[in-house]
């Protein structure tokens, strides 16, 4: 056929150099790759920097050309910025963490590699983790017991025994403090009652005065009864503290000589003696201590337990508040509200609420929860303590409610989607069996919408766990004197201020007195926050997957 060839040529034949869609595909693939790389880099940088906080680095003894000796951990190496442009041989310098802050006033020093005559890592160098002045580096040259007798430092067993004794004294003192608090509790309570009575309006009346007198007598009797036992405890405590101060080790680093009383010694690490496995074990132990101990020295040393605890509790309380609120709202909007302008407006309002900057919620929490509600609660229930606020100041409760408000749109939207996905045939089936609308909701619709509700919770938790700005206005602090949960009735103290990982990161990396030394700790805290969010998410995802499995097989 003569016409057939021309017909074919319209859609068969030579094309351009590239298939038409190819450049587009390449660009999208590259963009995806870039995103993945950046995510990987984020994790890598955080992890590597955090790792340095736990991994015991080798301690170097560096002899300079002029004969001075420096001891410390090499933490960085970089080319020296050249003044002249013609330099071809790059000269490096190293950053040495020397510790011994009370002598050098700085934890770090830069040393030109060109000036180094010798660099060795002798096994007898130690890092002493102290409760004051940060780490100390050096060689133990002497150790003295509390009675002034010398410890034989050449025998490792003697030295370790000596350090262990100090640790025991400190443990004993922590026990004694606890015991004293417990012993004194009835007396403390009486005193608190007396205090609030004296400040109340009734103190002026004759009956009030009478009552105060009686209470004062009771306090005196109780104090007398407990007196001897308290004194004994105090004596023991005092004795241990004295012994801890008098026992000491002496470190020498180059020309520096440092006396460290056992009271300040938290740990002595012979870093250069550790093999690989003991290094790993050491790092793991450091990690556990980091998670479960209190911070020291304005948060630049020690652990992050209060911040971790505060974050987890905050997220839990937020979940407890946000799920019922969000689910009830979504149920009303989906199941009961008549479609129309009002519902569309409500929907838009919820969606827009999700985009409001979090600091705005913080201001709202401060103005409404803290000042309005908290102030009213104080006037109604804690009037005797005014003008000192109880609930009228930032605290756990108001912060978690503020976060709940911040995250409620996510829960509403996800729950609505879950509810809308429940097949109409299940609702019809349930109603046709004579169940009420409420029973249908409880028995059929809500269980089937559970995956949607959990999705909302996951998103809410992810957002809440990382949120810092609103917390700074509603109760997060640098250093909380006590946890929001403790052994005294009512155990959960929601009015208390709390520490938070996100705020802690900001505080350690920007507001601490020793930013340089605390940098790895900021990264370690970041890693913990990251892992916490991932862990919370994973938990919810696993639960959701289990629920979804129950609905498999139904064509929705």
């Amino acid at each position, binding site marked *: 056929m003569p016409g057939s060839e021309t017909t074919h040529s319209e859609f068969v034949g030579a094309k351009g150099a590239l298939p038409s869609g190819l450049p587009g595909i390449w660009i999208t693939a590259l963009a995806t790759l870039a995103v993945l790389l950046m995510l990987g880099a984020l994790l890598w940088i955080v992890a590597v920097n955090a790792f340095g906080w736990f991994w015991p680095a080798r301690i170097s003894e560096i002899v300079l050309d002029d004969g001075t000796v420096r001891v410390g951990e090499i933490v960085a190496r970089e080319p020296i910025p050249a003044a002249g442009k013609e330099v071809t041989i790059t000269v490096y310098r190293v950053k040495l963490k020397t510790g011994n802050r009370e002598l050098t006033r700085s934890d770090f020093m830069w040393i030109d590699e060109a000036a180094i005559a010798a660099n060795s890592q002798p096994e007898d160098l130690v890092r002493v983790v102290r409760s004051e002045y940060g780490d100390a580096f050096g060689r133990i040259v002497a150790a003295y017991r509390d009675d002034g007798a010398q410890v034989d430092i050449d025998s490792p067993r003697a030295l370790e025994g000596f350090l262990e004794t100090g640790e025991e004294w400190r443990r004993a003192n922590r026990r004694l403090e606890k015991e004293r608090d417990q012993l004194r509790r009835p007396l403390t309570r009486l005193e608190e009652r007396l205090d609030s009575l004296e400040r109340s309006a009734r103190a002026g009346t004759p009956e009030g005065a009478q009552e105060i007198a009686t209470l004062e007598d009771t306090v005196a009797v109780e104090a007398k009864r407990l007196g001897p036992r308290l004194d004994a405890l105090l004596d023991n405590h005092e004795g241990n503290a004295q012994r801890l101060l008098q026992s000491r080790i002496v470190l020498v680093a180059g020309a520096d000589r440092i006396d460290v009383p056992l009271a300040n010694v938290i740990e002595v690490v012979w870093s250069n003696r550790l093999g690989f496995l003991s290094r790993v074990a050491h790092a793991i132990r450091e990690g556990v201590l980091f998670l479960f101990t209190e911070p020291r020295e304005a948060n630049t040393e020690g652990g992050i337990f209060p911040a971790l605890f505060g974050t987890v509790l905050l997220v839990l309380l937020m979940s407890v508040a946000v799920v019922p609120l969000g689910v009830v709202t979504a149920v009303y909007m989906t199941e009961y509200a008549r479609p129309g302008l009002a519902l569309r407006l409500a929907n838009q309002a919820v969606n827009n609420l999700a985009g409001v900057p979090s600091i705005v919620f913080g201001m709202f929490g401060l103005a409404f929860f803290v000042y309005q509600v908290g102030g009213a609660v104080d006037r109604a229930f804690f009037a005797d303590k005014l003008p000192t606020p109880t609930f009228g100041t930032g605290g756990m409760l108001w912060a978690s409610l503020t976060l709940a408000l911040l995250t409620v749109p996510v829960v509403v939207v996800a729950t609505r989607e879950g509810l809308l996905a429940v097949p109409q045939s299940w609702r019809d089936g349930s*109603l*046709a069996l004579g169940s009420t609308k409420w029973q249908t909701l409880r028995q059929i619709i809500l269980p089937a919408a559970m995956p949607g509700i959990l999705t909302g919770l996951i998103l809410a938790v992810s957002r809440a766990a990382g949120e810092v700005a609103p917390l700074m206005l509603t109760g997060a602090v640098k250093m909380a004197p006590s946890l929001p949960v403790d052994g005294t009735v009512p155990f959960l103290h929601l009015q208390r201020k709390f520490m938070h990982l996100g705020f802690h990161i900001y505080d350690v990396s920007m507001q601490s007195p020793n930013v340089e030394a605390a940098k790895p700790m900021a990264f370690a805290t970041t890693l913990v926050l990251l892992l916490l969010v991932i862990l919370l998410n994973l938990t919810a995802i696993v639960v959701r997957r289990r629920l979804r499995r129950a609905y498999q097989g139904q064509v929705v």
Partner: protein
Amino acid sequence: MEFPRNEDSMDLQQSVFRSPQGSSANPTGEIDATHHETALESRGVHLYYGETQALKGIDLAMPERQITALIGPSGCGKSTYLRCFNRMNDMIEGVRVEGQVIVEGLDVHRPDVDLERLRKRVGMVFQKSNPFPMSIHENVSFGPRMTGVRGRGRLDELVERSLRQADLWEEVRERLDDSALDLSGGQQQRLCIARALANEPAILLLDEPASALDPISTAKIEETLLQLKESYTIIIVTHNLQQAARIADRTAFFMLGELVEYNDTTTMFTNPGHAITEEYITGRFG
């Protein structure tokens, strides 16, 4: 007749559907040809979806312990009509019903009607099987549990009896605690029948219960329905004319929201009173 009819629409209806003999002008009068009492009845039922009229003055009386089939082309209003008897149309926005819908002598629209009790009395099985995402046992005992029946023993008894009635017991007795969603399509539909029976209803409404099933499952459902006829009044909407012929005692033919003809199934299929009925059952349209 409770309320005045629109004379124009009446004329229209008559002009379209009046048979030469005029035999179905008053179908309610004919029903007592058998010894069965009337279980369901409608008098002048008009139903509107907003502005659209879906049912135009349906007068129909259905005998108890018989199977009545509602047939007719798609969109003729037979499913809508079926849903009047347990008031499932209430849930659809903008639906308005006029006239009397009578179940066992009582108008279902009376203000003192307890909707939940009505729906227990008048069970329903839907076109698409809709087992809940629960175990077989929980599905069957759902209705009784919602109305306060407690106690594992009592529920077990109800579940077994209902499953036996729906001819499913032997197939599932070993796995009552398995998910109902794992059953086959036919089993799921019989489970839905058992679920309705567990409420101990008097009347069973079935909305094309076998339309999504294979012939073997369909046969099984039909067999079950014939057994249930002994103790239940069954109304079945079906697209399948053979099915109506096989199981129904009486058949009603709907078209464009009107009841065209209502008669004994045998009479309907052998000697239809209207030309249009004959055209439908012989497959000339529909």
